[in-house]
């Protein structure tokens, strides 16, 4: 292994390991602030510069949280499987960090690299992304099982069922983009979309983006799909028995996974680093990319502040009876609109494909919704109304 190669690898990976964890700290602050404002509270506002009364809108909160997490006692339950209890948070973080490599983030220092070591240049980057992000399920199950706590195990089982179910609509909605771009290479998919040819601006792309985003919410256990960690039902789900730094690792892993999957959504549908002024300053592409990720994260936080949690049966029905048929139908529509626009170039064909696709999708969604409503029985409660 030559020095050149080591330098290249460091240049490709270290920025990711620095940028995203710092963004994580900022995101926790942003999330707490936004949720507080949604609930008419102020949110963290005390901790700013130490030893002064300057609050800086509570921007010091993540640092204070981090210090607290590190110094907190690490408790391992007596009946726990010690090895797995230790491994689970590490295993939760590793895939999340790994899949960041498959995002086509082209840093300006890329030109100092002698070879092509960036993972997003792989021919099958998108498949790798899905394959490795699926490993997070195992970590969650491991945590739930190793804690030897019924709530943890319930959370772990819920997580496995949920993540396995939602991976399918997630992948199927990404398939459309792979079909249209004709490549699994993240860089090529990004390049196809330059000049505002974003896939979200096509009828099938829009539908796929919505399905993808919903499935991504479930995949990262975000509200309203946060059943694996539902506080009001199973305490904290799979990380009930975790404290201190191990808990922080889970937390970090969860947020990094959020960044990664938002990053994939940006790559596949929102034109990756595409944006204005790129001709003047090419380095802006990274800024656009991260700004778009933050846009998606903001929507996730907004949704978390808005929607109540789903029930388990609703969750499963939604994945298998709604999103899955919808994404398969979308693949058909995408093929149709591609061939129509190739055969008949012109605005008329464009308009026709837009109308047919959107109306078709809407009718399909409405029909699926109606079917699921007609078969679903209202749940009977003993105490509440």
């Amino acid at each position: 292994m030559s020095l050149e190669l080591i330098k290249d690898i460091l240049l490709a990976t270290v920025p990711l390991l620095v940028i995203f964890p710092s963004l994580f700290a900022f995101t926790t602050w942003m999330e707490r602030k936004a949720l507080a404002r949604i609930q008419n509270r102020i949110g963290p506002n005390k901790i700013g510069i130490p030893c002064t009364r300057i609050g800086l809108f509570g921007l010091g909160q993540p640092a204070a949280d981090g210090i607290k997490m590190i110094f907190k006692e690490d408790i391992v339950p007596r009946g726990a499987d010690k090895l797995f209890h230790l491994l689970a948070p590490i295993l939760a973080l590793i895939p999340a960090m790994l899949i960041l490599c498959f995002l086509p983030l082209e840093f300006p220092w890329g030109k100092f690299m002698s070879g092509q070591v960036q993972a997003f240049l792989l021919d099958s980057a998108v498949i790798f992304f899905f394959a490795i992000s699926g490993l997070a399920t195992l970590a969650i199950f491991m945590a739930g099982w190793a804690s030897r706590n019924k709530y943890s195990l319930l959370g772990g089982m819920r997580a496995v069922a949920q993540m396995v179910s939602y991976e399918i609509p997630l992948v199927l909605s990404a398939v459309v983009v792979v079909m249209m771009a004709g490549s699994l290479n993240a860089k090529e998919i990004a390049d196809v979309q330059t000049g505002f040819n974003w896939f979200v601006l096509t009828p099938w792309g829009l539908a796929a983006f919505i399905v993808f985003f919903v499935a991504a919410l479930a995949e990262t256990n975000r509200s309203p799909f946060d059943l694996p960690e539902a506080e009001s039902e199973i305490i904290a789900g799979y990380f009930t028995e975790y404290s201190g730094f191990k808990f922080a690792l889970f937390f970090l892993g969860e947020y990094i996974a959020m960044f990664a999957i938002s990053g994939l959504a940006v790559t596949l549908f929102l034109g990756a680093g595409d944006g204005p002024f790129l001709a003047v300053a090419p380095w802006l592409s990274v800024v656009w990319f991260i700004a778009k990720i933050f846009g998606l994260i903001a929507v996730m936080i907004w949704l978390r502040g808005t929607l109540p949690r789903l029930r388990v049966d609703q969750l499963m029905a939604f994945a298998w009876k709604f999103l899955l048929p919808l994404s398969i139908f979308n693949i058909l529509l995408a093929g149709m609109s591609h061939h129509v626009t190739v055969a008949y170039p012109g605005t008329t064909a464009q308009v026709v494909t837009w109308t047919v696709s959107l109306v078709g999708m809407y009718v399909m969604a409405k029909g699926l919704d109606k079917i699921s409503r007609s078969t679903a029985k209202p749940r009977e409660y003993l105490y509440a109304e």
Partner: protein
Amino acid sequence: MSILGGGIFKGMAVTLRNFVGSYFSKERFITTNEYSWRPESELPQSIGDYPKEEGEQLSDTTTVNHYSRNFPMLLHDTGEPMDTIRCVACQICERECPPQCIYIEKSTEKKENADGKPQFYPAKFDIDVSVCMSCQICVEVCPFDAIVMNSQFELSTPDRFGGLLVRRDDLLKSNDYYHKIHPQEAATRDERMAADKAAKEAKKKAAAEKAKAAAEAKAAAAEAANESKEDTE
């Protein structure tokens, strides 16, 4: 025909309004401060200043408190709290409580309640604040309408061992106070209780009348039988 997913956008509009509004109007913060209607000079400065008088935490200006439920309280009717307490220490709530935070000790002898009926009463009725999860199941299961939710939520205390266990006498609140904090709920509850009582009495009366009628009929029948017996003889 409603638009698919329209509810989500509606909800998001509401939260967005709250998000933006919280930067512009101070009144929005009213839900998170029990004392928000007071001028700043009168706000509690230290723990000792926290008023614990009945109804003190209520603002006249906000209706939000009418829907807030935080911690259970025991109801008594007008009169001396312990003379008119509704709770009969049946311990249903203690058994139903999911986190098991209610501790009841039944009295040894009976005492007259507000209706003048001799009943048991709780010699001890403690609820642990640190365990209670505000689920309101105790309220749902109580057959005597003796336990309802209070909306007082500034329950912090400097004493973490004794102070977090709220004793019977602190839990006791009058029905008038209940009317003050949850007017609608209290009114419907009173109405229902009155109706139940009336129905019970009517039933009792009907039963008594029925019994009386049955007794009379029996007597008449017996008489008739006697007469017929006599006739045959």
